């Protein structure tokens, strides 16, 4: 590998990127936009669930039950229904997510020591919200129930669960999303920037010119890669800075370890993007393939948001070859768990392997073209 030629290629690519000011601008804007959206707009914290009430008991006891739903902070009572027929309507048009039905016999049963039944009708179409709402409702009703039956006497329940959350004590969704987002951002850079770089030369006919120069394939691949490595590292640094300074995501591990792993992942992702670019020779195709091969797996199969544990075994198996999966466990491990290389050894090995495979593929395919 000749240094002068390598630098020349890198400079050419860099000039090309710089001249295309808008692409560069977007390469920096998009990560920031994603960070802002994920940081400010998104929350898995389910609150203010819209609740409608059909109270057919209309007693002090039933009002107290409704009151305990409201005061929990999880539910907002959006309407009191008059008839059973209204239940259908309220759920169908999405006005309410769940309806609490209190039967006429509620207070009488409660007073006589028989079990009083209340019904909870949920809009199950959004299964996630419904499941969480059901858990909240269950806790509220059973709290109410023990309060009422034990009124005047103090009998504590024999066991209670002490819930603890580790690594992300406040269960803030932002804390778990932002570290993983770094992996997604890098996959986007790979798909948006590198996947186009060689396909563009083919479409514009400049590939023949490049082939006619004495430049070695290794120099082309590495030279073209270098400016993107710079952009990628810059993006990651900015993202990490924003995460720490603006969103106050905890950082408990080693910065250098994160930097090293990031560099390896970046090399692999960019190499893969370049391989796709060289193999497809068309920008439309290359972007599509890069989306499916790098961006979507990083979004869906990395454990970034969607838990791998709940996937069917086929996807679990597929996720094992998705490099982003290991990188996400590295970022979450370093940001939130504060673990070191002893725990992340397997993931680190995966990063090394990924970088080697990504670069190897890019170099291999590129040789075929020039020959």
């Amino acid at each position: 590998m000749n240094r002068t030629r390598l630098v020349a290629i890198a400079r050419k690519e860099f000039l090309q990127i710089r001249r295309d000011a808008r692409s560069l601008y977007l390469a920096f804007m998009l990560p920031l936009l994603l960070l802002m959206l994920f940081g400010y707009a998104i929350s898995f914290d389910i609150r203010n669930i819209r609740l409608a009430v059909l109270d057919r008991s209309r007693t002090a006891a039933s009002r107290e039950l409704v009151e305990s739903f409201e005061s929990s902070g999880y539910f907002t009572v959006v309407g009191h229904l008059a008839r059973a027929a209204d239940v259908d309507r309220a759920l169908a048009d999405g006005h309410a997510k769940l309806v609490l039905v209190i039967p006429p016999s509620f207070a009488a049963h409660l007073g006589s020591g028989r079990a009083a039944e209340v019904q909870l009708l949920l809009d199950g179409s959004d299964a996630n919200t419904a499941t969480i709402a059901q858990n909240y409702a269950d806790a509220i009703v059973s709290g109410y129930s023990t309060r009422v039956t034990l009124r005047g006497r103090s009998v504590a329940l024999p066991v209670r669960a002490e819930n603890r959350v580790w690594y992300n004590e406040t269960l803030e969704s932002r804390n778990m999303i932002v570290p993983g987002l770094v992996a997604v951002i890098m996959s986007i850079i790979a798909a948006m920037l590198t996947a186009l770089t060689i396909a563009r030369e083919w479409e514009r006919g400049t590939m023949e010119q490049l082939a006619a120069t004495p430049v070695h394939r290794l120099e082309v691949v590495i030279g073209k890669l270098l400016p993107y490595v710079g952009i990628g590292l810059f993006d990651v640094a900015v993202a990490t800075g924003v995460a720490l300074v603006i969103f106050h995501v905890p950082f408990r591990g080693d910065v250098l370890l994160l930097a090293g792993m990031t560099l390896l992942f970046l090399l692999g992702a960019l190499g893969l993007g370049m391989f796709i670019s060289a193999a497809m020779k068309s920008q439309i195709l290359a972007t599509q393939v890069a989306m499916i091969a790098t961006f979507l797996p990083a979004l869906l199969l990395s454990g970034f948001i969607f838990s791998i544990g709940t996937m069917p075994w086929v996807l679990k198996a597929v996720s094992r070859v998705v490099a982003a999966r290991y990188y996400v466990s590295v970022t979450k491990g370093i940001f939130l768990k504060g673990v070191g290389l002893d725990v992340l050894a397997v993931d680190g090995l995966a990063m090394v392997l990924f970088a080697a495979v990504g670069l190897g593929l890019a170099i291999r395919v590129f040789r075929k073209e020039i020959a």
Partner: protein
Amino acid sequence: MSSGSLLRIREMVRKEFRQLLRDRRTRAVIFVSPLLQLLMFGYAVNTDIRDTATFVVDLDATAASRRLVDAFVATGYFEVVGRSDRPADLVRALDHGHALIGIEIPRGFARDLTGGGAAVQVIVDGTESNSATIAQGYASRIVRRFALEQAAAVGALPSGGVDLRARAWYNPNLESRAYNVPAVIGVLIMLMCLLLTALAVVRERELGTLDQLMVSPLTPGELMISKTLPVAVIALFDLAAVSLLAIVWFRIPMQGSPLVLLPAALLYILGGLAVGLLISTVSRTQQEAFMSMFLFFQPSIILSGFFYPIDSMPRFFRWVTLGNPVRHFLEVVRAVFLKGAGFIDLWPQYLGLALLAGAVLWLAVIRFPRTMAG
């Protein structure tokens, strides 16, 4: 429209179709990748908690503590992946990510149970906060039920109380897939519309063939129609194919009528095409077009309620989502698939889609001829 105009559009549309379908790989992108993506999304986007990996440290090792662990396992939500009598092992299991939940039953649990005031520690890995929230809720419920049974068994608890009978409508088993798969359809259609329209126009500009078209008798309006019509046909075809896959493969029941879906789909596709055209007017290269598209696509998915509930967003972002066609369309597909909603239920969504499509189309029609000339 004159007959000459119709003829020109027909020829142009034929050329576009040929160009799109000529290449085997492009055909694969148009027809196979939506199906592939539906499979990926359909299986991956899943929030059901089943068999969560759980690590148990039972320091008491009595009949009572074993009964509690059994109560956890019996629900199907938790699966014991490891046991130990050293709390350090629990820490390791969570650190390595081998388990998401740790249950620690302290020594003297059975003794405290009869005396009242026993405690059991439930530790969840908060790095997956959605799963953690749900698992925590289940765990509290299981322990509460266990406590009530214990209390009732020794007669400490008066009979009666309140029973909650919960029933889920539209999706009785609370499977998240039924909610997510129809939404994926909407996301894929938008992606297809944006990508094919924006890149097709910009590609001609980049290759210089747009100049050839400029000197042909084709008017900008005719060019717009002939560029978007083939994409609309492909998008509708993909919509049908992907919906069919959702129904046949994922067994998502289609409660409503496709006829309710169709007008919304047409408006939605029209809006997507208009956005694609608009992007093509601000991009000189395919790379720019692709990135501008991404800049629109990503936020519109995040703010669509696709996976992140709109109700949980801050008020400002809730307002922003009203200007997002993806939000309105997802509400329509989900309501048609799961609730069997009709025209009357969905009029606000139709209105939203129509207004947005109209506005963007108007912008595109103004801008497109100008950028062609420039």
